[in-house]
């Protein structure tokens, strides 16, 4: 790392960087930022920058509030949207306690721990997210209905479309920041867009997703529109998911690949999927962490609400995509339940942990789901042993609460905080009188 630190210091001098933003993520996935002057950076590398953690969601109890943010030089990036000199740069931080130990409240550390466990088993974990979001007309105030910027559909090319310009600008920025974009297109719903990031190791991907969300919001502001990663803003249109392709590598070889096996899927790959399915319900509160997430999961269409896997089945929670036979290293598993508003560090950590558990315990993979799961009757599903994902955030929390796997993966501190925070959200939501109720009951009853 130390060459990288030197590199960072040199770059800051050469490019006349006047501010360095230190980024970190709170437990529910919001990006936090603290700006320091370049002169303080060397100290920050050596010892970290102190801040009061009690002000941040889920970080610390009041009496142990002092925390240190230590920038990770591998994540150094000049921020292009603050274009002109003097420039601004950012780095992601690891969070430490005043004793210099990794903080148990740090999402990034949660993922690092999970990755270290994978490394102990000889694996590196790669992810490739397809991030969906909506572009809306900017509106002020509460209780407004979202209005999409266009009325196009899947892969539509919109002449002079806002979305088109928008994607071009966003992708340019992302590429400027060293985040490779695989491809982008207009998604199924009006105003909905998808941008796919290139696959990378899970920690970099999670950092990239955090950056991505910021970039998208920034570009939207510049272009006079509003971007939202809310999982399900429109009842009548599909929601915004973050289908994520996962793969494990042993050195240079893809551990999921086995030539000649069904779908070229190795035993490791099958066990990994089995782990995701068996623990799928426990980890849903993390991968789909908002009240609204469950409106997407249960909103029909292609939303994956059942713990199933399939090959070309777009209703399954896990899909094993088709590959060209000679591309052994591209064997991967696509998880379709996760949404764009998750905390990517925690989400990747629990997905990895569930999959690894399948490998460690040698779980058997249940048979593939060939039918459209939505078209089956409840009894058919029961007969086939297909269980649903939790139906609401409240239910998801009840299941997660009993999960040893999630507690171990998140660490006791984050686990406890996450549950408390989300229970509070669920409680508040239940107190809300919805439009549905008003429409249906007010006059009738």
């Amino acid at each position, binding site marked *: 790392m*130390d060459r990288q630190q030197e590199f960072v210091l040199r770059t800051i001098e050469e490019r006349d960087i006047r501010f360095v933003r230190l980024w970190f993520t709170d437990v529910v996935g919001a990006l936090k930022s603290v700006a320091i002057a370049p002169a303080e950076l060397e100290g920050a590398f050596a010892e970290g920058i102190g801040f009061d953690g009690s002000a941040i969601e889920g970080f610390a109890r009041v009496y142990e509030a002092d925390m240190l943010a230590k920038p990770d030089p591998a994540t150094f990036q000049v921020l292009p949207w603050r274009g002109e000199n003097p420039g601004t740069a950012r780095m992601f931080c690891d969070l430490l306690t005043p004793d210099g130990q990794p903080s148990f409240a740090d999402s990034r550390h949660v993922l690092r721990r999970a990755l270290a466990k994978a490394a102990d088993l000889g694996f590196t974990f790669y992810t490739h997210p397809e991030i969906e979001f909506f572009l809306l007309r900017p509106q002020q105030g509460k209780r407004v209905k979202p209005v999409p910027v266009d009325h196009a559909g899947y892969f539509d090319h919109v002449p002079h479309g806002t979305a088109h310009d928008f994607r071009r600008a966003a992708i340019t920025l992302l590429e400027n920041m060293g985040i490779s974009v695989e491809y982008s297109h207009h998604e199924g719903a009006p105003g909905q867009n998808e941008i796919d990031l290139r696959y990378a190791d899970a920690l970099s991907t999670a950092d990239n997703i955090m950056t991505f969300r910021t970039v998208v919001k920034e570009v939207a502001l510049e272009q006079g529109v509003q971007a939202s990663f809310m999982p399900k803003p429109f009842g009548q249109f599909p929601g915004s998911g973050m289908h994520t392709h996962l793969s494990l590598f042993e050195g240079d070889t893809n551990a999921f690949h086995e030539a000649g096996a069904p779908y070229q899927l190795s035993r490791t790959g099958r066990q990994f999927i089995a782990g995701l399915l068996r623990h799928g319900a426990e980890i849903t509160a993390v991968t789909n962490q908002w009240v609204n997430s469950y409106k997407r999961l249960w909103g029909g269409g292609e939303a994956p609400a059942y713990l199933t896997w399939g090959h070309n089945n777009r209703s399954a929670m896990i899909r094993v995509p088709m590959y060209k036979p000679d591309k052994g290293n591209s064997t991967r598993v696509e998880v379709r339940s996760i949404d764009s508003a998750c905390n990517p560090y925690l989400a990747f950590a629990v997905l990895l942990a569930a999959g690894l558990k399948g490998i460690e315990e040698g779980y058997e993979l249940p048979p593939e789901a060939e039918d459209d799961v939505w078209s089956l009757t409840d009894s058919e599903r029961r007969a086939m042993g297909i269980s649903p994902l939790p139906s609401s955030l409240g239910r998801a929390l009840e299941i997660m609460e009993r999960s040893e796997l999630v507690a171990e993966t998140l660490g006791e501190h984050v686990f406890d905080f996450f549950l408390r925070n989300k229970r509070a959200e669920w409680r508040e939501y239940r107190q809300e009188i919805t439009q549905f109720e008003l429409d249906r009951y007010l006059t009738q009853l």
Partner: protein
Amino acid sequence: MQRSHSSGAHLARLGFAEPGRSAGLLAERVLTELIGEAGADDLAEPLSRGADPDLAVLGLIRLVEATQAHPEARAGLADLLRSDDKRRHRLLVTLGGSRALVDHLATHPEHWRAAADATPPTAADLRSAMTDAIRAHYRSAPAIPSGMPSRSYPPAYDVLRVEYRRQLLRIAALDLATPDPVTHLPVAAEALAQLAEATLEAALLIAREEFGPGHQDCRLAIIGMGKTGGGELNYISDVDVIFVVEPADGVTEERAVEVGTVLAAATMKACGSSTAEGTLWPVDAALRPEGKQGPLVRTIASHKAYYERWAKTWEFQALLKAWVSAGDLELGKAYKETLKPLIWGAAGRDNFVEDVQAMRRRVEQHVPAAEAARQLKLGPGGLRDVEFSVQLLQLVHGRTDESLRSATTLEALHALARGGYVARDDAATLDRAYRLLRTLEHRIQLYRLRRTHLMPTEPDALRILGRALGLDGDPAAAVVAAWQSQAREVRRIHERLFYRPLLAAAARLSSAETSLSPEQARARFAALGFRDPAGAMRHVEALTFGVSRRAAIQRTLLPVMLGWFADEADPDAGLLAFRRVSDELGTIHWYLKMLRDEGSAAERLAHVLGRSRYAAELLIRAPESVAMFGEPDGLVPRTEAALTQTFRSAAGRRDTPKRAMASVGALRRQEILRVTLADLLGEIDVTQVGRALSDIAAATIAAALDIAGAAVTSAQGGAVVDMLVVGMGSLGGAELGYGSDADVIIVHRPHAGIAEDVAQRQAIAIVQELVRLVAATGPDPLVLDIDLRPEGKNGPLSRSLTSYAAYYDRWALTWEFQALLRARPIAGDAEVATAYLALIDPLRWRHGGLTATQLREVRTMKARVEAERLPRGADPRTHLKLGRGGLTDIEWTVQALQLQHADKHPELRTPNTVAGLGAAAQLGFVTAEQAETLLAAWTQAARLRNAVLLWKGRPGDAVPGDVREADGVGRIVGREPGTGATLTEAYLRQARRGRAVVDTVFYGHE
């Protein structure tokens, strides 16, 4: 053929292990053809002088056989074998000393001359021999740059290996032929290091040749590290290096680094790869900045930048050994000059002490158990420990004293003795021991040229090893004896090197050989982990000052004890407490004698004092209790009966209640100390601690009740009541923690014909006296809590049996019956006890268990306790008693089961949580898994609660968050040193699991 000379019996006398086979070999035709039968006969005795005579004979036959096809190799061999001189001796002992070298001679027979004609090599000799061989090779067969020839490695690799082994034969022959290998050791080790350096030089030549044009763009120096840099290499070992590059004139730095990386990699490959001629040794460049992640080569400026900013303490320690080994010597020197101030400033860095302690733990740990007894290198007192200890002193004192800056262990040791940093005789003892262990290591490695640091176990191998060291008689037994006696010396290394000189400095002994200045001594104390070096100096000085016998004994004790204190989480506190105890006891004859003579007594005392402030305070208050360490059963808690008897009779010998109670108080503290010590030394577990502390409390109360009763009744002109004290809560359950209050309720019964109110008055007077007396037992008294009585603080202090019956009948709430589950008579009248139990048993184990309403009441009460009882600001997650998954959670769960089922299942009728839980599991009210989880959570919380008090000296109810405190507390509960940061996480995990079971079993959640 009849030859008396080399008959089997003769050979056996000479020390051949397989005389028959060796006699046959001596008669082999290949040999007799060369030197005749008589000549062969005459060789028996000279062959027997080596380590393994049988191997020597076999080796000779193989050598002679091999020369048959090589006339040039054969020339002179016959003459040599017939002559009786040093040359022949060198060849024959070489054949008998190394199977691997015999193999080499069998393929390169002409190399016998390297052994026979061996002269002590100089660095320059070796360097020119190695490089000349490579140059000669390239003159005859130029390298084909870049594009590889058809073979998978350059032929020069073979040349390098063959020449290396020829030179190795030379070094080994001189080593094996010396009459005193232990003295010779540094010479051999230095020659081996020089040979490695020469080989690196030659390998670099190969690398440059293979690179072809352009290689000059990079100046490259190879810095030897570790034993290579120290000039003290083994026969077979990784060779540690660091590569330094600079651009040649007119070349960019990038280009130089690019070329240098290729050259360095090729150099490593030239030594490390396997070819037809085998391999030499791996070249290990992992000590470079950033380790294996870092670039293979760096410029001087880049090295400097790294060490200035990022390097860890151990990296500076590694740099002590840096030595310019090969390549561009000017460049190497510049590198060393640049880094020098950094290395010698390392001891002043932040975290130096913590780093050193962590490094020390690493040195001492990680020996596979199966090997521990045979290790020469690892573990406490191993070779690595000697090297580490010497280096640590170099870092601490070399800062100001340049004479200490040698890269070689033995030289540094001598320099430390010369400078007065360690005593001369201690240095000499260690020098001897280190040499012997290294010589053993060398001989073991040389035999097969395998890297090993283990003593052999097979008798044959031990015999050969013993003979290799020139030991007579029974060489196998002698070598084991020599090894063990020297290993014993080395095991005392920390005492000798670190602490004795400190003592001499502090005691200002004029006769001492060491002469640390006060600043030097303080620096060393600090490096060893004492946070207040000046204070430590004062304590040591006070303990050892003067010419008394006491000071003399302390001077021998302290060096060892200081080491034990330094191993604990708080060395300063340990030393201070030791001083205070010693100040109190200094003149008492048995104290120092016990510490000196009782084996483990001193060590146990040191650990206890360094580990627990509570124990230290108890000891300081009653220093004579130290005697427990020396008594055979000193650390076995005494039974309640024995305690009661002792307390009573001690009280009985005093004439006033106050004096009587003071003597009970002193005994109580002594018994608590006994439990504390047994607990800290791991002799008893947490349930035994709870039982023992409860017994002590019960005996104290019983003695106090006697005294109070006697005092009141004699004042009132006679007894009119019988009294009973009932233990409640954790006292009733015999699960008391250190510093816990003793919950009790008091029962009385009027004597026949006495009115209730008269009896009540006397009973209350007795209780008041009891409370007063118990509180007056001196410092840190037992706290009697009688608030659990009916009507709480508003109720009478004591009630008669009748009154209890009426109360329970009319008023009592479910929680009061629940509290009765833990009621256990602990002092007073036996008949009253029986009557009281007869009264409460049907209440607490009530027929039909709990009604649904009552069960709801219990649950609601618990939920309310959780919400309200927690002190302000306490974290409900880490509160050991009332927090989630804490003691109360598990206790209430067991009690709820008892309330529901104890009427039908007598096994459940126990005041003890652990026993109740066990019974509930037996009966299937909880699953085995649930019981295990609950027990683990309860045990963890109980142990931590005790450990917090032992560590801090005062009670605490939360898992400590501060890392140092958590480290100290963690050590008491048996966690690894230095793992304070993860204590909370580990606690929370166990507590969460416990709480989940409580939710299911107690609250009835699905």
